[in-house]
């Protein structure tokens, strides 16, 4: 608790500190590669025959996903707090790579916890982290995925809290993490809003983003929450079936509960034990969801739908072949939803899909799952 309070205080101060904000802005621009383009996907639009589809290209950021936004922000906070050791959890490895990158940039010791199942399926990212000087610690407990990596990172943090910052990678965990991580990703929606107004002279009819913990989704949604006519659509991992354990669709099979310091929708059994999950994408393979998404959903402001493993893989191939963009399997869930939705929308309507990451890390899994001739 003391560490959370310290972090909360420091973040509140940093928020009002112009020098901090300026430094973050410069790093986002000159190091991470912001702003990212909003790209009109002409061939995909034509193929689907409905709404105009724009892609927010977070996949073009340094390290290959939106995760770097938050890592740079928290990295600068670590500097302010004078801590020299950073720990993180990672599922797909994107947050781990972004954390390892920022630690290399700012000179921190870095330990990343990762489930051994995820290490197996995201081998390339494990190597990238090690190349960047981070220590990757495999986690053998539970389902050996993201949830278990967070457990282990929390255990490390309570043990070494005096010297260590926990660089949490999604809008999860105890206060102030969900709000702080969201704030560092708001830049996605801020840019997208200005870009779409410039390109189309109007707001989009819908924004679609994948939701694991929900950081890229809340980042792109947030600036549009007040624009009631913009539909906000989050896509969860539908996995390979509807039974508990076969998916990570918290709003389809979950109920309110507490996991890892967050009260939100949780996939759990009747006794309150947390369920195992499955998704082809390691980054969506998590039994709970950011609490702000739960609020948006219960308020009827955002809607959440599942996309299955198969649909995500199909969407990956389609986007690769119509636009020359290979999305991360996480982001491919958002693409899968636009494939269903765009044909039913008017040609005059505009939809934005947040391509939160690129698919290079997933080539191994995609190769296993698809037989391409």
């Amino acid at each position, binding site marked *: *608790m*003391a*560490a959370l309070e310290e972090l909360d205080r420091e973040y509140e101060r940093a928020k009002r500190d112009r020098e901090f904000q300026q430094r973050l802005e410069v790093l986002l621009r000159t190091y991470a590669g912001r702003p990212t383009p909003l790209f009109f996907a002409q061939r995909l639009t034509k193929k689907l025959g409905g709404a105009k589809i724009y892609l927010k290209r977070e996949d073009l950021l340094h390290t290959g996903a939106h995760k770097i936004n938050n890592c740079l922000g928290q990295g600068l906070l670590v500097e302010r707090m004078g801590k020299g050791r950073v720990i993180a959890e990672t599922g797909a490895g994107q947050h781990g790579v972004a954390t390892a990158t920022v630690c290399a940039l700012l000179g921190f010791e870095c330990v990343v916890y990762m489930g051994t199942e995820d290490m197996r399926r995201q081998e390339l990212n494990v190597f990238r982290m090690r190349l960047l000087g981070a220590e990757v610690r495999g986690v053998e*407990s539970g389902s050996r995925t993201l949830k278990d990596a967070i*457990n282990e990172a929390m255990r490390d943090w309570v043990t*070494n809290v005096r010297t260590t910052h926990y660089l949490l990678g999604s809008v999860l965990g105890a206060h102030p993490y969900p709000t702080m991580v969201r704030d560092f990703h708001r830049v996605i929606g801020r840019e997208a809003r200005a870009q779409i107004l410039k390109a189309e002279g109007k707001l989009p009819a819908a924004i679609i983003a994948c939701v694991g913990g929900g950081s890229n989704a809340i980042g792109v949604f947030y600036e549009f929450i007040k624009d009631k006519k913009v539909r906000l659509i989050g896509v969860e991992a539908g996995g390979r079936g509807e039974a508990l354990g076969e998916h990570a669709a918290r709003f389809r099979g979950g109920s309110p*509960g507490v996991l890892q310091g967050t009260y939100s929708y949780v996939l759990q059994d009747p006794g*309150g034990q947390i369920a195992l999950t499955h998704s082809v994408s390691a980054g969506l393979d998590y039994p709970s969801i950011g*609490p702000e998404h739960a*609020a948006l959903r219960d308020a009827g402001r955002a809607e959440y739908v599942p996309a299955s493993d198969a649909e995500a893989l199909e969407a990956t191939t389609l986007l690769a072949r119509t636009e020359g963009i290979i999305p991360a399997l996480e982001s491919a869930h958002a693409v899968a939803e636009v494939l269903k939705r765009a044909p039913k929308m008017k040609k005059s309507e505009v939809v934005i899909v947040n391509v939160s990451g690129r698919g290079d890390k997933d080539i191994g899994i995609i190769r296993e799952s698809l037989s391409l001739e």
Partner: protein
Amino acid sequence: MKFKIFTTEDTEGHGVTRGEAIQDMPLSFYKRPGLVVYVTCGDPDLVTTREIVLAAIDAGADVIELGVPFSDPVADGPVIQRASERALKHGTSLGQVLTLAAEIRQHAQSTGLIIFSYLNPILRMGMEKFCMVARHAGVDGVLVTDLPVEEAGAYLRSMKSNDLVPVFLAAPTSPDERLKRIAEASRGFVYAVSRTGVTGARQQLAEDAQKLVRRLRRVTKLPVAVGFGISNAEQFAEVGKFADAVVVGSAIVETVERNRGREAQAVGEFVGRLTAGVSRAAV
């Protein structure tokens, strides 16, 4: 509880009652230093857990913490993680632990019984229902590892209306203001965590523990129990010099793990050895 769209100022649960007189305590240590024994219920099975607990009581335990296994025990080290996994494999539930508590109560009238759980299984049962069932089972108190006092408003109200004693963890990193709040919300005793980190036996006990007890004495008259990392008679004696009671957890669970088929006997012997070198004065 309703979900909220956050503003950065949000925190919940400021309903903590402060500054009330300490009620009559159903939880007492009859000897000093007192001994609190933790077990993971359902490891290896519930029948054996009952035998283990009764053996520990026979050997001198004053208070028993009945650990409810949870799928994601973030506050626990590897020993209790393994035990929880074993217990969950055959479906040990909070309901079963409460039934076990009632059985133990029939055999042990004066021993303090505490349910030691993570929050989610309790929420799933329903806070009020949990408290009522616990009270009827003869449970004295509850410790919810992942419920900070700052968020405990509703919990404290349910506990109070069911005459249950809430126990909170105090950490060496807690500032004085927070220690005060923890002490004010606690009844029965305050559980001082000997060092930062998760549960598990340690060879060397941090000086942190003694400092923390001293700081707690300044804010509370409640007995202070020290736990996390105490695994042998020397440590029991050492901690017993400055704490009112000593909590032994992982070392018990490890004894269970290592003595398949004779768990209760082994725990009884272990507890006997733990306290043998210390003269525990009646109070």
